């Protein structure tokens, strides 16, 4: 893979990272990036994106809504992308994963 390709891949991944800042957890009312729910964003340079993320609780009733939101938000800007959301629960999410900005917004 050329250096130029890698730069392009990082650029798309960074862009998706910013896009996911608009995806809210409807209960906590904070975006999933600042909540620390997104563990990894992987773009293969060939229209395939894999989001490795978790939920605040494994049986979160809003799980579908959050993952649908992730897919729809990415597809809105990149309609040709195949978006794969992989939910993982190891490591389990806890409050220490919330960003500084998230803590401020939650009044923690």
């Amino acid at each position, binding site marked *: 893979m050329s250096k130029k390709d890698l730069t392009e891949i990082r650029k798309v991944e960074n862009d998706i990272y910013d896009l996911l800042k608009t995806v809210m957890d409807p209960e906590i009312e904070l975006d999933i990036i600042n909540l620390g729910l997104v563990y990894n964003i992987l773009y293969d340079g060939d229209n395939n994106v894999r989001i490795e993320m978790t939920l605040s609780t494994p049986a979160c*009733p809003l799980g579908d809504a959050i993952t649908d939101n992730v*897919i729809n938000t990415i597809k809105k800007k990149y309609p040709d992308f195949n978006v794969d959301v992989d*939910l993982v629960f190891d490591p389990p999410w806890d409050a220490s994963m919330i960003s500084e900005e998230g803590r401020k917004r939650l009044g923690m």
Partner: protein
Amino acid sequence: MAKNLHTDNAPAINTVKPHFLFAAIGFLALGILMVLSASNFFEVSYNHHLLAITHTAVLGWLMMLIFGSLYQLIPVIFDTALYSEPLAKFTFWLTAASIVFLVYTFWIGDYTVYLPYAATTMYLSLFFFIFNIMMSYKNARIKNFKSLFILAAVFWLLMAETEGLLTALNFKYNFYSASHLAHLHTHAIMGLVGFFVMMIFGVGTTLIPMFLISHRLNDKLLKISFYLLNFGLAGLVLSKYFVDNQYIIFLFWVVVIAGVIYYFRYIHESYKHRMKKTLDVGMKYTMLSLVFLLAPVVISLILIFLPQTGLKAYAEVIVLLFGLSMIFGFFTTIALGQTYKTLPFIIWLEKYQKLVGKYHTPLPRELYSEKVAGVQFYIYMVFLILTIFAVILQQTMVMQIATVLFLIVSILYNYNVWKMFFHDSDQYINKRDKEILNK
């Protein structure tokens, strides 16, 4: 497509929704019946209007809300789908018809002609509910103390209902040697503490930490609470049947109270470690309801030692205070709070799940009026205070004012519930699009 998602087991919205609607109507009916019967609160115990009001509250309002909430939460608590949705739908209609029939028979004071039939249909409908929950538990992938609370609650419901049915049939066939009152006491203890408290505690162990967002809590506290509550209750009911000695009853009641205290400690830990520092209106109701649970705990101790306290003349007032503090202080307060936590999400998921990310969507709490919910909260608190004064001072006038306030609360609650049900997602999105274009 999301992999490893645990929410595929959620029931269809039309399985859950009718329960919330019936509960809202039941709550309104309760308000109307209370205004019509304000003066009956100071008459002899088990006045037929009070029985109609009690059963409207516990069955028409609280039980329906529990049915709907539990069907929605089974996938979360048990990590499996509800055993049978068609059975849940059938149970809803049978329960709804049975509640109307039962409340009507109490309201007209009929204990021999219709009551046995109303009690039998009620028993059957609750039996179907219990069967559905037990079969769901059989398939559960999560079997811990949280799910055991639910299982124990439905067991106590079966016991309470069996006692209720036998008491109702006894009015006609007269096969009990003991008085109706003795059986009504065990029916009430098993129903109110065994079912409602156990069920609320069980659902609360999942919902409260989930809404407060607190993790890694000490499950040992729950375990101890579970054993104490069930051991105490079993002892209480058995000693009521076979011994009826106030010191033994006191001993078992203390065990039940110890179970409540351990549960409080668990919730307190969750509250202390919560991420969401500011409580919304739903959580304010919820946390306050747990504080209010202290009232029936204290009153129950007075009741046990009534002959020695010199308060025997006030027995009926104290029994009434116990019932009111349980039904309105604890159950209704938490039910009002949890409606504002669960129903907006159920409706939001129905209307917006497929639209999120494509359009700007509202937050679940924006589906109802927070202002109305806030006003409702304060009026409800005034209602509780006035009711206590009215009962202690035996003031019919104050009770009348309190019941009118309760009716207002039920109207405001219905306003918000119907507002959520009639929420039009297309209209909301079109309005937002126009606002964005105008900017």
